[in-house]
């Protein structure tokens, strides 16, 4: 099976990640709206948000501002991350692998991993939840490694684009 191009693994994964991104953002919006319009139940200091169509599925958690904020923030971050990932896969769908869009989206995902994730992680741990940053520090390290790796991949793609354009102009 093809990895790049139309009707390839990239093409199918694009839909998976785009669906995940939309799902995360819709879920975050649903939680926020539920609290705004009062679509939740309180029992023993815990909230329960029922799903409109899936009666057997609901969202439960401690009724604390910090918990609600952290859930929403994580869902928004996941939505942004998956959307950025889907944009990279979208650029891999095109017939020409090395293209400017792929480089741009790789750099965006690198910035998300190198800057946005540490900000979200540290603000969640230190400000919102007020807990130690050491418990789960591996997530931060993995994100930084992934971000640096993406920068290298973006640089490789930039070189590939140059070689490809020179090759295209060799008659």
């Amino acid at each position, binding site marked *: 099976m093809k990895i790049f191009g139309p009707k390839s693994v990239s093409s199918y994964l694009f839909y998976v990640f785009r669906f995940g991104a939309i799902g995360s953002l819709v879920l975050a919006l649903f939680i926020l709206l539920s609290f705004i319009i009062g679509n939740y139940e309180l029992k023993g200091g815990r909230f329960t948000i029922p799903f409109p169509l899936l009666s057997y599925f609901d969202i439960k958690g401690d009724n604390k501002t910090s918990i609600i904020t952290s859930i929403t923030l994580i869902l928004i971050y996941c939505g942004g991350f998956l959307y950025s990932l889907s944009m990279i896969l979208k650029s891999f769908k095109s017939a020409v692998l090395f293209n400017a869009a792929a480089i741009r989206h790789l750099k965006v995902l690198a910035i998300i991993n190198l800057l946005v994730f540490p900000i979200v992680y540290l603000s969640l741990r230190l400000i919102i939840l007020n807990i130690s940053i050491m418990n789960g520090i591996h997530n931060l390290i993995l994100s930084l490694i992934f971000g640096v790796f993406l920068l290298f991949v973006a640089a490789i793609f930039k070189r590939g684009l140059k070689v490809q*354009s*020179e090759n295209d*102009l*060799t*008659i």
Partner: protein
Amino acid sequence: MGIVVNLDVMLAKRKMKSKELAEAIGITEANLSILKSGKAKAIRFSTLEAICKELECQPGDLLEYLK
């Protein structure tokens, strides 16, 4: 200026159209146009040989270095 491609001059001398040359040497008109306009980054020896054979000329007739 650098390397200048005088393909259009040679085509005019031989009274040949770009389309005819492209068909004769087996490249697309679009690629021949890139070569004529000087946008090409490189030219293959096989392409140069085919053009020289078809236009009955030397590589120096097609390529010129200008300061």
